């Protein structure tokens, strides 16, 4: 079984995010890392291929400046190879354009049974890529999976719902988005890290994928940021130190609010 995992390489979420002053898009100039949300997809793919007893895991990533650090992390976990789409023409791409790039990359990857993504990325979190990629490929989209099983050419998931979960099944090939925590991502071993350095990364541009520069990036985006502002701050009220009787003040406050 051959699986593509979409992995996004993002600015470290631990550092405060910044918008580029000219373009109002996320500043992605510094070093990028593997979006932690995608480490679950990578682990899931490795386990599924292992269970199937054959096949390989191919990574697909669209990222600026030939960025590979996040890809290397996922290759070190055990993925076999990667397709990296990096092209200045793609700067400013909206989610639908990103989905087009990913769908074309899946086609480029060849004979694929399953595409895995996270439910949403950490930095852009539109959460629309899984559905858009499935729509473009005309494959079933099984979203918000908290359990994934493959058997006899079908994929069956537990799909998170407001009330609990649904069991959803479709034939392969299909796109599945996995929630954080579905599996425990492995730490890359030293051997894995060394091996990752020599694993093939197929670097392509939008044109290589058959996408016209006028359809992608700034030229392709059909929405525009019109203003960016600081959010108004909420004012804090009283602050007390507990001396053993703070609960009394809480009770008084609850009474004032009439919630008791």
């Amino acid at each position: 079984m051959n699986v593509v995992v979409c992995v996004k390489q993002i600015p470290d979420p631990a550092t405060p995010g910044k918008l580029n002053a000219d373009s109002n898009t996320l500043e992605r100039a510094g070093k990028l890392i593997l979006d932690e949300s995608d480490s679950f997809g990578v682990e899931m793919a490795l386990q599924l291929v292992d269970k199937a007893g054959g096949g390989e895991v191919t990574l697909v990533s669209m990222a600026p400046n030939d960025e590979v650090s996040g890809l290397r992390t996922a290759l070190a976990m055990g993925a076999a190879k990667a397709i990296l789409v990096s092209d200045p023409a793609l700067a400013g791409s909206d989610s639908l354009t990103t989905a087009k790039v990913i769908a074309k990359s899946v086609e480029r990857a060849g004979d694929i049974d399953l595409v895995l993504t996270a439910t949403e990325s950490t930095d852009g979190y539109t959460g629309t890529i899984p559905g858009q990629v499935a729509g473009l490929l005309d494959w079933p989209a099984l979203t918000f999976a908290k359990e994934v099983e493959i058997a006899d050419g079908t994929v069956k998931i537990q799909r998170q719902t407001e009330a609990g979960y649904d069991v959803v099944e479709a034939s392969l090939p299909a796109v599945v988005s996995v929630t954080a925590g579905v599996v425990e991502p492995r730490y890359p071993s030293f051997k894995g890290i060394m091996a990752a350095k020599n694993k093939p990364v197929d670097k392509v541009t939008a044109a290589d994928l058959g996408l016209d520069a006028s359809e992608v990036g700034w030229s392709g985006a059909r929405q525009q940021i019109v203003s960016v502002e600081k959010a108004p701050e909420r004012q804090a009220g009283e602050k007390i130190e507990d001396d053993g009787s703070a609960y009394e003040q809480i009770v008084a406050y609850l009474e004032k609010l009439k919630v008791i």
Partner: protein
Amino acid sequence: MGLKIWVFAEADGDKPASATLELLTKAREIGETVEAVYVGANADALAGALGDYGASKVYAIDPGGRLPGVIGAAALAELLPANSPDIVLFAQSYDGRDAISLLSAKLDKPVLTNGFTIRLDGDKVIIGTQIFGGNTLVDAEFEGEAPYLAAIRPKSFAAEPGGGAPATVETVPTPDAGRAGEAKVLDHHVEEREGPKLEEAVVVVSGGRGLGSAENYGPLVDDLAKLLHGASGASRAIVDAGWVPYAKQVGQTGKTVKPKLYVAIGISGATQHMVGMKGSDNIIANNKDGEAPIYGIPDLGVVGDATKVVPKLIEALKARS
């Protein structure tokens, strides 16, 4: 001419979901004609409330054992050309996200997501989002031709009935969703929940890593929530640690809540948590670190050890009831 706005409606049991009523209320404010598209059972039972909140008509589609978002996208793709709404609104929910993203691919239309405001500027439609954990507000407008597709986070607008007549129900045959329609729903599992829903509760009590252990969640957070007739919530730290299920998570990647009272216990106040609760009417915070960022927002801050403060509070409340 006024705008025609469609809302992708979802159900919660035999009532419209609260997120749907919020969208209808907003649609009524900015649009002239408001209609709903609903994929699911019992459209007739929903028509009264949909009408009351602003929909004059509901297109009702039987999912036929398929995912509502998948069938919704296929149905919308067929319905849009003949009916030409200006805006189609979706909740940023599980099914709403499926529907908007599949439709976006089908129609080759961009999307704006995670909206928390919608406004019109002349004939421009502008969607506001909160980014960087809610400390920055970004307005974006659609370019190109309508219909514009937008997903709005639940709890962005108040739901208010407008007193409209029940929506007329127009049944639409289940469309052929192509290969996407191969995904079959085999079974629904409903997890037990006591008390009100997190997003609808008047009082929300949330706990974080400062509780010290998973065992403390029940006696400190659940019990306090129960005494206040509220729902219990959580920070992501303790969801990720497996103390409580994801459904309880409040924040950027969880639920947005706007209760009358929010109580944060042992939560540091990361921006990603606060974006989900700072719209609450009143906030009480308890943290043992007086410098914790959470203290930037509460109406009442109680600096102290949660394992000491909360049991006393619970005792006092029990003594009253």
